[in-house]
């Protein structure tokens, strides 16, 4: 697995091409925004009858991570369920699969805007989880430091050699790390969106997921004036730096 190694506030982290985060020192697997039960919730609320297979798809992906890494701890960064009722409506087979994955593991459900309270499943339910100087929460906070969060479903859009690429990505700067959504049917918010302008520092990197990871400066809205200004204040040119920089910022 070609992960992206990241030293983040003294923690040696791996950003996986699947969109999960692995902290080997703590044997901790972290995933964001599973949105389990999304299609069922839309149907329940009288919306579209989407293909009802996305929960199995998401659980397939999660179990592959767990089988490969065998984590002792699992942190789900909120919006794990599309709403509080979804947790109870996953269906017997899916619930059993989830319980089998949870067995013998310290499983932490962070609450999110979609699932703001405890659900009927076992595990620890909390708004934040602190561990060795890092904090796990659903939505990035303005003064967050050493903060790992989800919520935004970031994706980066690029055009290289005539090929359009749009991929879910991690966003990382000196103080925070935002994970891509792990669930199926979750869509994404482009890094050029205004929402990221305030959240991520000027030095932010986007780590693309896919068959393997790759980091690029976080794509921003194309405004030449802003780029020039950025280069000046940050004292590094965006394109040709000459010497390789470490991803650690």
């Amino acid at each position, binding site marked *: 697995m070609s992960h992206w190694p990241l030293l983040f506030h003294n923690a040696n982290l791996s950003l996986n091409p699947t969109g999960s985060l692995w902290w080997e020192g703590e044997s901790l697997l972290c995933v964001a925004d599973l949105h389990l039960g999304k299609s069922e919730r839309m149907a329940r609320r009288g919306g579209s009858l989407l293909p009802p297979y996305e929960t199995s798809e998401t659980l397939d992906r999660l179990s592959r991570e767990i089988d490969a890494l065998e984590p002792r701890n699992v942190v789900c960064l909120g919006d794990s369920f599309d709403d509080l009722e979804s947790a109870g409506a996953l269906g017997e087979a899916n619930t059993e699969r989830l319980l089998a994955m949870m067995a013998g593991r310290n499983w932490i459900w962070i609450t999110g805007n979609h699932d703001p309270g405890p659900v009927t499943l076992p595990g620890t339910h909390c708004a934040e989880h602190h561990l060795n100087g890092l904090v796990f929460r659903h939505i990035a906070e303005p003064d967050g430091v050493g903060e790992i969060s989800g919520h935004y479903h970031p994706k980066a859009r*690029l055009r290289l050699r005539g090929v359009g690429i749009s991929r879910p990505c991690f966003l990382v700067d000196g103080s925070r790390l935002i994970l891509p959504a792990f669930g199926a049917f979750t869509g994404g918010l482009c890094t050029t969106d205004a929402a990221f302008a305030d959240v991520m520092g000027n030095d932010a990197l986007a780590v693309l997921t896919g068959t393997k990871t790759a980091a690029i400066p976080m794509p921003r809205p194309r405004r030449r004036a802003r780029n020039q200004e950025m280069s000046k204040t940050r004292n590094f040119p965006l394109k040709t730096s000459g010497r390789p920089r470490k991803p650690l910022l």
Partner: protein
Amino acid sequence: MPIDQPSDATRLPQHLTRWFADRGWTPHRHQLDLYERRDDPGMLLIAPTGGGKTLAGFLPTLAELGENPEPGLHTVYVSPLKALATDIRRNLSTPINDMGLTIRVEDRTGDTKATQKARQRVDPPHILLTTPESLALMLSYPEAPAIFGGVQRVVVDEIHALAESKRGDQLMLCLSRLQTISPHMRRVGLSATVEDPPALAGVLGHGSRVLLADPGPEPQIAMLETAELPPWSGMGGRHAARAVMDLVENANTTLIFINTRAQAELFFQAIWAVNSKNLPIGLHHGSLSREARLKVEQAMVAGEMRAIVCTGSLDLGIDWGNVDLVIQVGAPKNVKRLVQRIGRANHTYNAPSRAVLVPANRFEVLECRAALDAVAEHDLDGDTGRAGGLDVLCQHILLMACSGPVDPDALFAEVRTAGPYAGISRAEFDDCLEFCATGGYALKAYDRWRRLVERDGLYHLRDPRSARNLRMNVGTIVGTETLPVRLRGGGGTPLGEVEESFAASLVPGDTFLIGGQTVKFENLREMVVQVSRQPTREPRIAVFMGTKLATSTKLSERVIGILDAPGRWKSMPGYIGDWLDLQNHISRLPTPGRLLVETFQRQDRAHICVYGFAGRNAHQTLGLLLTRRMEEAGLDPLGFVSNDYALLIWGLQPVTNPAAMLTADDLRAGLDGWLASNAVMKRTFRNVATVAGLIERNMPGQRKTGRQATFSSDILYDTLLKYDPDHLLMRITRDEAARGLVDYGRIEDMLSRVEGRIDVVHAPHLTPLAAPLLLEVGKVPIRGSGRQKLEDQAVEELLAEAGLAVPAA
């Protein structure tokens, strides 16, 4: 068939006869004939442009309503264009006011104000002018029986334009519902020239009969010969700008049709470059803003324009009496469309239309020749026996459920009376009903949340509030995601729209043409492409709306026919004969019923050229399939390019036995595997899923909020492919792709026509017929193990450029 009896104005009611007489007019023969047969359940009138078709359609209505009509809706008029509905209202009010009739005419389209719509539901006009979508919407309200209960007549204008599309399917389903609500309703269809009038009458349904108007004198069409020879490839026709300008100068008003929007922009620029007299020449295409198009149309109505460079956007619509010349730049691709375009130059009904064809390259000289012959012989092409779309039926079932509980047996019987659905089986109908009710998944996940629930044999909406969402989703045209283009500063004048993917490819400083001016891309803000004027720079071509029309089967057959008959080469410019003689000398010419395949070596690359004559889209598909097979056989294909006539593949190893590669079974097997993961399939799926109501349309204003919560239809497609590949929507998608962009049907047709009669020529070098292909744009590189690999490579290059290290694996 035309009725053979003397006709004169005295057959009309007195007030109509007097009106004609007051103007010094005589009704056309077909207007009277249609009036005579006003009590027939269905009539299809086929008449050329300028023949007073629309008035013919309304004469029975004006007569039946009389001078003091009772209140209530009498006639519903449906047109494919909103603008046409507005225009007809203006045109109808003239005779109504002249005769002092108290007939109320109103239009109802997407542009109608909400207050007027509400009033129309309580107090409908005598004559309602509308579009298929607005009619579907009105029929989805519970009050529909009250509004339409007294409808006596329905008039469908430009029915030829609707008949072969999903909009037509939807309209015919709606007519069936109208007929149920008002059993005595009579139908009239108005159409331009078509290849198979009885088939079109079948689409109109209700036992419709055909009435053919006198088609008028034969059109005068010629092919333009320019001093500068057409180039070997390319489609723009810019070499002919000077000659076209001369034609414009010598005509009153000219319509210049161009096949694509980007080419229209380029040609518009080219013709202005030689417009030394500064004649008013306008531009009209679907990517321009509504305001810009309206301005051109109004100037045209006011007679202020000498010429308009336009695309299919002006195929339909208001008859401009003053047009006396039509110029078609680029091969017409389709004979029927050409005839209909030529008909636009018909300033008086009894004068011949004048038209000029301008071939844009040398292959197109052949195609233009073939098209001229076809027009002279009245040999039109067209889709035959297209069945109604099941996604449209799904939408119809849901909309009918909005209007009231649905009885499946009754609805099935009603649907079968709609022309395009006459052959639908009960099983297909039930599949659609099941999809509407439960989503139709193999896993019965939604039995609790069914959209339609059954009570006492009737299907009801489970949640009446969902009717609002369903009505928002009405319609069968799914637009590509487009972004508005505006000038930066100065209030941001709207210029038009470009595709989202095109906008995403722009880098600040890039220039492109829109609305006839070169603009520079500044930035993309809040989903608006901001540009500034850049009059001097050479533009990068705007590739908005990239799909190109493929040449019709009929026209392709005629082109082979010309190639096969050297005696006919004399009817074309001399350089064509020389070119074809040389081809015959070095290789051979394609012949009907056989397939010519050439192989030759050029610059260390082995080339293979397949003259399939199956149209651009089918050749593109064939290229993808053949290169896949070549890759499996270790022949290292490197790329291919296709046009409407042939496919050229190059690679490292020569193909020694082309016939073995071209077997239908193997190609079909490859198709299934390749097709499933193809981007064209995903695009088709998105359209089907939107029409059928699985995905809701992006509504204006919704886009900015909560975009991350939306899901991509590609992911839905992948999920269904994995877990439920036989889902109704997947089946519809496959059927549609086989006809549409993938066009596999034409490859099958070609292979079955050829039946293994493949002529292989191992030519000594590049052949004259294959040479133009090397100049074609749109070469497709073979991506080896796929797009992902290429993307990874590109990312790595970017990393290297940015000085970022690739992490150790």
